């Protein structure tokens, strides 16, 4: 159920790396734990993120949770659609991306989980 073309973190983010751009969202497991999502708070384009740094929050009816950068890099885009349709994170978690970054240390990708390892983590 977890797409094999994505990488994952222990904090339940997914990351898709294509060339010098990485797209980041939260996993189906994460959205299921949070329940109905009502707000997604994202950083400004241009912000420099360090791997592991909190870059935003996702808030559901029952809880608020921080988002952590899977890799270091500069924020190049944020998904404005989530401002008006945060529920997309529930309905299509692996399509509803949150931010894109330009990784500054591509080697960090080596410590990300693949779909099998992430699936085991959520069992």
């Amino acid at each position: 159920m977890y797409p094999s073309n994505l990488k994952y973190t222990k904090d339940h983010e997914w990351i898709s790396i294509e060339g010098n751009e990485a797209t980041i969202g939260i996993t189906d497991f994460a959205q299921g734990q949070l329940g109905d999502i009502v707000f997604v708070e994202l950083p400004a384009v241009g912000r420099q993120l360090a791997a592991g740094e909190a870059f935003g929050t996702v808030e559901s009816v029952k809880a608020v949770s921080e988002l952590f950068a899977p890799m270091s890099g500069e924020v190049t885009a944020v998904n404005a659609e989530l401002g008006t349709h945060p529920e997309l994170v529930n309905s299509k978690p692996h399509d509803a991306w949150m931010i894109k970054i330009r990784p500054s240390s591509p080697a960090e990708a080596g410590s990300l989980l693949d779909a099998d390892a992430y699936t085991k983590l959520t069992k």
Partner: protein
Amino acid sequence: MVEFAGWDMPVEYSGITEEHMAVRTRAGLFDVSHMGQIELAGPDALKAVQWMTCNDASRLSVGQIQYSALTTPAATFVDDVLVYRMNADHFMLVVNAGNIMKDHEWIVAQSKKSGGDVSVVNASSRYALIAIQGPQAQAVLQTLTDIDLPAIKYYWFATGEVAGIRATVSRTGYTGEDGFEVFVPPAQAERAWDALLQAGKSVDIKPCGLGARDTLRLEASMRLCGSDMDEQVSVLEAGLGWIVGWKKTDFEGADVLRRQKAGELKRKLAPFEIKDRAIARHGYPVKKDGQQVGVVTSGTQTPFLKKSIGMAMVPVELATVGTPLEIEIRGRAVTAEVVPEPFYKRPGKA
């Protein structure tokens, strides 16, 4: 599932929003068997209830219910309760799950203090409690019972059978919606639950968990004891002057309440709305000029009104409608405004 006062309870079945909307538009079913029941009986039962609770139980007819509180000498909450008048000299108090043991001890001690002939029984294990709530609740429940449901007025109850099971049915609830709470013997609870779910299929009834129970009650401005008020908060501070029997001569905490009513009230629960895209949650500070002056006691984004709402305990001068409140949400100052309650009132209710 979460542990709640010793019970394993679901936060949600199909999702808080879906469950919440089902109750507002059709019907929802809640297993609230965790609630406690403590009964007082005897020639002096009324006297005891009158002493230990703040509302005026003498105004209850047999078959009638009132919202009330078990008060401390400081007029604060031991617990908030529903008082059922089962008979002239027999009352049942429905109490919060987390407080059953504490309440029972308190009620026994207060009965001795009030004196006379009254016995107190913790009957919590004798009852399972299922709430069916929503505009279609009556239609669904009526298919399972001969009790004349339209004849049961708001905050009254009747006894009979539901799905062939001996039951007490009260027109009460914790959702702001029309509906009933059905007391059945625990051994038959599963059968009653299944029968209600089956009967509700025609209206797409949804089983509802603790999450929707909380968003529904808050949308209706109903207080949650332990969150909005506790043993540090008085009945008037909780904004519940309407449950005080001012004409009663004496009851636990009466002096304090009378002084607070006469002008000594320093702080009060204020319902607020946030226009910003943010949710204030329990414990977040309310500030004025950089100083903390209050605290958020409840807050959520309500699925039906689609508003960010909550309650905060603030100085009385900040509790009037229209007052801006500054709430600190994870380091950021967000402006809320005190609004009238309830946030939500069901259509057709006076």
